[in-house]
């Protein structure tokens, strides 16, 4: 009988791990639907970027209040997970507060710190819910946030609040039982925050408190496992992917666009410049630019899965600010949603990328792409170094080179450049005319 809880715990733990591994494999395969790209140069800079931006939350602090609250939730997540280790070991071995005897006073200090974090996480999440649902901070209520994205955000906040309440409730019941000398309960010492809850529970019988304590324990650990699986279906994936995502930050100057060597070869041949390396003539060039997710780099897709839909990019986007359809956040959500669609289809034995749909057209319109000023405000704003601009520019390349679908005024600009080597229709012979005025003035002097 006494082994039953352990057995149940192991079954739950095993099932959760199984699902989690399955989900991780699904996500990994999806991300790798993007085309290969090697980006591991300058490891020193990459480590530093990851430490500062992901671990140190550097870019969050551009907006202080949410950064401050987010920092508590983040530290709470990191630190309280240490307690989850004890939970798991207790669950497996059927022990209770396994670490308490070994750590002594340090255990009490740790528990008080955990409780402090639990309270700060709880308060932060309540404020976040208010910001989203009562204050309605503009970036949280834009059109792309309608429906599931808003629901997803609220679910996450509510789960976090409930899990934190479970910890505090468990500690309160646990310590009352320990003080009463019931069974295996250990007196940890004075736990400041859960002690405040004692008056709520003092009047209950020990039997009921054991039930409350056990219920809270099970709720917390099963809740955390369920949450871990939920995260893989959610925008909340950023808690893990922020780290690889910042590692793979583009380290070149933001203004630099990636070169297309396939085009360089053709241009050199047209101009009669010898092409240095004899490139493999049968090598498939593929498409120019990006029509669908497999034309994008896998790092672009990783970016999409790392996006937590905070909307700082969209809030800084000059096009979006002035009412255009473009929203960099929507670009990232579209890439992720299309990847999910393709991934699910492949798993169901469906057509995958050949389903007659594509990122361009079915998800992202030309109107959105055409509104971008390539100003890099979105790239600068992203707290986890996502690059929506790279995707927009790759898709523009497809529109221009594969579809000849650029706006008429751009086509006119192209034509001017081809015929008179300037985006405007002027004679190249007149390029130096400005100098006449300078010469006249100098002669007059």
């Amino acid at each position, binding site marked *: 009988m006494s082994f039953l809880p352990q057995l149940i715990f192991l079954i739950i733990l095993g099932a959760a791990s199984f699902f989690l591994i399955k989900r991780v494999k699904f996500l990994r395969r999806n991300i790798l639907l993007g085309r290969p790209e090697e980006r591991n140069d300058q490891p020193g800079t990459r480590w530093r970027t990851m430490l500062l931006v992901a671990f140190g939350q550097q870019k969050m602090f551009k907006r202080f209040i949410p950064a401050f609250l987010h920092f508590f939730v983040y530290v709470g997540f990191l630190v309280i997970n240490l307690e989850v280790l004890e939970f798991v070991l207790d669950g497996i071995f059927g022990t209770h507060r396994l670490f308490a005897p070994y750590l002594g006073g340090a255990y009490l200090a740790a528990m008080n710190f955990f409780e402090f974090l639990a309270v700060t996480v709880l308060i932060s999440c309540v404020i976040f819910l208010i910001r989203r649902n009562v204050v309605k901070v503009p970036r949280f209520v834009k059109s792309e946030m309608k429906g599931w994205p808003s629901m997803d955000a609220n679910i996450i906040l509510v789960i976090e609040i409930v899990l934190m309440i479970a910890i505090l409730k468990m500690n309160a019941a646990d310590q009352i039982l320990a003080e009463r000398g019931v069974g295996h309960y250990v007196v940890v010492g004075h736990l400041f925050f859960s002690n405040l809850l004692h008056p709520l529970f003092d009047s209950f019988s020990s039997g009921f408190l054991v039930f409350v304590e056990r219920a809270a324990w099970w709720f917390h650990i099963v809740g955390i496992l369920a949450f871990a699986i939920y995260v893989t279906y959610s925008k909340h994936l950023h808690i893990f992917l922020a780290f690889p995502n910042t590692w793979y930050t583009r380290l070149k100057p933001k203004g630099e666009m990636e070169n297309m060597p396939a085009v360089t070869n053709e241009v050199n041949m047209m101009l009669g410049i010898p092409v240095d390396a004899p490139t493999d003539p049968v090598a498939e060039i593929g498409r120019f630019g990006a029509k669908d997710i497999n034309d994008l780099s896998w790092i672009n897709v990783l970016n999409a899965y790392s996006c937590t839909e905070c909307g700082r990019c969209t809030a800084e986007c000059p096009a979006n600010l002035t009412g255009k359809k473009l929203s960099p956040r929507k670009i990232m959500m579209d890439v992720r949603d299309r990847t999910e669609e393709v991934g699910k289809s492949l798993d169901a034995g469906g057509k995958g990328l050949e389903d007659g749909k594509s990122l361009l057209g079915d998800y992202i319109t030309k109107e959105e792409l*055409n509104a971008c000023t390539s100003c890099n405000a979105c790239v600068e704003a992203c707290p986890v170094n996502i690059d929506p601009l790279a995707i927009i520019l790759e898709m523009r390349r*497809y529109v221009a080179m594969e579809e000849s679908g650029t706006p008429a005024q751009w086509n006119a600009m192209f034509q001017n450049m081809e015929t008179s080597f300037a985006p405007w229709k002027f004679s190249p012979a007149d390029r130096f005319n400005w100098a006449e005025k300078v010469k006249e003035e100098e002669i007059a002097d």
Partner: protein
Amino acid sequence: MAEMAGKGENPEVLFWVGCAGSFDDRYKAVTQAFVKILNKVGVSFAVLGPEEACTGDPARRAGNEFLFQMQAVANIQVMNGYDIKKVVTACPHCFNTIKNEYPALGGNYQVIHHSQFLQQLINDGKIALKGGGGFKGKKITFHDSCFLGRANNVYEAPRDVIKALDVELVEMKRCKTKGLCCGAGGAQMFKEPEPGKKDINVERTEEALATGASTIAVGCPFCLTMMTDGVKNKEKETEVKVYDLAEMIARDMGI
């Protein structure tokens, strides 16, 4: 440049004029101002004149990589032919393209923006500022060009140039890394904006006007056009002027 090369001379720096600098009626004044400064200071420089072609930036940002590379490779052939080592330009788009994108196509030069060049000349004491432009003590705000600022992290050089004029530099709410685009980047200069509630340059001009500055300083030909149009849209063109950095320095020097 052809003339100098013919005489076997090699200039210290190539001034890349750019298409706006060559053809835009308003912006030609910036080219002239910058050249007058270079002449006054005695910098040995050359321009390519009719041998210069568009860097290809707007074509590339509009998606036409073929056209971009045709322009780029042709320009690189000309510049490499003259053995150019150092390039200065007043246009942040040309600056970005030549500096960051030409190396992959075989064009390796030291490229500097005219704000950096002017900053250097001022620091070296080569430009003698006389306070002649009527800017002294006035409130001036600087509008960051995206292709100079975020794209290439040049924020201080233009500000140092403005401060050298002994003015009160006032910042807009969104500046430096958070600077708001004028609306012309990414080849937007060459087409009408997509449907929306407002034009980006009007939004930015409102922010500039809110600082109470009498001059909006810029360091980019597209920004100059967009901000000038924005000021006109707000009917403030008599009170508020839009100038490029080079024009301000030239006016102060009385040239």
